[in-house]
């Protein structure tokens, strides 16, 4: 077993060796520009790009012509949200999203607000899921876009996307779905889920960083204003020379995901459950944040009450995880995702996100359980809150000198 152990698969994933192998020739021997139409170097590159496009399309039930290459999911989210808003603004200027979206969507929405658009930010339920009825109630005659992610990056909670998509479709509103955390992990089908625009990232599914895609529906046709002007690549949606090796890698990653996803989901879910049950056996006062039932296989988001998340991460530095604690951000505010779900601030400060994936092992999980057990107990021995609770003090009854 290699130390440190990587358990942060939501942040990024290692490139699968099979993906790397597929990419390598496109750096050195097949280095043509896919836009060079006049010679064999260009044709080879274009051929590879189109094969990759087929693979990505196949993974999500789309046709290849509906896939637009980007530099990653942040760009895909920006292009989808701003591009659709700008194209359809004559029809209306109202947009609907959820408070727990990724910052790439939320900040795009905020940018649009500054341009005169109006955005409704819906609250998720306490289990982290967005109630489709809330989407329906939020729609207005001037609503032009609904954007809701498939799986959340902090909690792994899976939203009822098919229903939300159906509501948007019936209302004639474009539906964008940031599917970065779910594609390759659980089934995602653009037709079954009534999705018009979908953001995809390669490096979250064992492909390389710096490449992503946006699915853009053709029937009924969804239109966008391009964010990037230039040579008119990608049918004018996204100018810029294509990252051929990256795209080849993303294609290979999509192929592997299509072939191995279901078996991998079973294996990773078993690891996740082993981790959860192991931690629960080892320690008391744990809370799993978000629905366990509606969750991507590799995610476990746990609050270790009375222990601060960053202190815990320092203590378990052999295991790479992340925390919703304020101390891991510069803002001094704990996770906005957990807060929007109604998780109390102290438990948000105490949260740890475990991300398991393709290369995680039982041995690593068992080591993690033991390490967390030991370190949480040590930090709780040091925690005045744990001492007070054990003495029977109700922390909610205390008037803290300075609650913000």
């Amino acid at each position, binding site marked *: 077993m290699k130390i440190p152990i990587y358990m942060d698969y939501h942040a990024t994933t290692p490139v699968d060796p099979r993906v790397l192998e597929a990419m390598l020739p496109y750096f050195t021997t097949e280095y043509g520009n896919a836009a060079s139409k006049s010679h064999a170097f260009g044709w080879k590159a274009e051929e590879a790009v189109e094969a990759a496009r087929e693979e990505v399309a196949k993974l999500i039930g789309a046709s290849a012509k509906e896939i637009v290459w980007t530099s990653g999911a942040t760009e895909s989210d920006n292009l989808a949200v701003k591009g659709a808003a700008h194209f359809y603004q004559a029809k209306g200027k109202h947009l609907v999203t959820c408070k727990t979206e990724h910052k790439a969507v939320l900040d795009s929405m905020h940018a649009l607000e500054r341009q005169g658009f109006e955005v409704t930010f819906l609250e998720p339920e306490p289990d982290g899921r967005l109630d489709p009825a809330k989407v329906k109630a939020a729609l207005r005659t001037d609503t032009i876009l609904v954007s809701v992610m498939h799986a959340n990056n902090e909690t792994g909670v899976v939203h009822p996307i098919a229903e939300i998509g159906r509501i948007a479709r019936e209302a004639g509103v474009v539906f964008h779905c940031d599917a970065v955390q779910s594609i390759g992990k659980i089934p995602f089908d653009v037709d079954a889920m009534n999705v018009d625009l979908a953001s995809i990232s390669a490096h979250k599914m064992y492909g390389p960083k710096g490449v992503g895609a946006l699915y853009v529906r053709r029937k009924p046709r969804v239109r966008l204003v391009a964010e990037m002007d230039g040579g008119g690549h990608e049918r004018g949606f996204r100018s810029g020379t294509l990252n051929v090796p990256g795209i080849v890698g993303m294609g290979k990653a999509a192929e592997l995901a299509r072939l191995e996803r279901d078996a991998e989901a079973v294996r990773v879910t078993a690891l996740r459950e082993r981790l959860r049950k192991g931690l629960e056996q080892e320690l008391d006062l744990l809370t799993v944040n978000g629905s366990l039932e509606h969750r991507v296989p590799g995610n476990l988001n746990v609050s270790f009450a009375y222990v601060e998340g960053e*202190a815990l991460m320092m203590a378990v530095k052999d295991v790479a995880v992340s925390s919703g604690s*304020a101390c891991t951000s510069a803002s001094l505010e704990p996770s906005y995702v957990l807060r929007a779900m109604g998780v109390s601030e102290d438990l948000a400060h105490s949260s740890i996100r475990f991300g398991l994936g393709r290369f995680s092992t039982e041995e690593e999980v068992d080591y993690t359980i033991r390490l967390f057990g030991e370190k949480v107990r040590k930090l709780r021995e040091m925690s*005045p809150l744990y001492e007070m609770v054990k003495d029977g003090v109700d922390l909610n009854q205390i008037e803290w000198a300075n609650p913000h």
Partner: protein
Amino acid sequence: MAYSEKLIDHYEHPRNVGSLDKNDPDVGTGLVGAPACGDVMKLQIKVSDDGIIEDAKFKTFGCGSAIASSSLVTEWVKGRTVEEALTIKNTDVANELNLPPVKIHCSVLAEDAIKAAVADWQKKHGREPSVKPNTVQGDRSALIEKGVLKSGI
């Protein structure tokens, strides 16, 4: 985040973790911060008849910097008089541990914990607290006003 060796040493080998009897008339207890802010420090001092702090213990809920800051001040206050302990400033703690800017509030909390512990001990002895703790943790505008936080952070 890159932390100084001293900070990591105090975090990994915290000094004086534990509790003193809060009902002992010679013990002063300071509890500052709030769980919602992600930091709570409990600092206890045991003061001898001639006003010297002969023992100090802490328990802290908070990040590594908060734990290290409290550990450090328990070492610093021991052997000092109560008046001397009150001269310890947050900037001394921040400099000693080389706290990054976003962690300065941890040192503010440590200074406040000393003030609160001393005030509690003074109260037990029928004296007016010589200084009032002014916990500003989590309150951005107060931190900015105190000059411990730059507005951009």
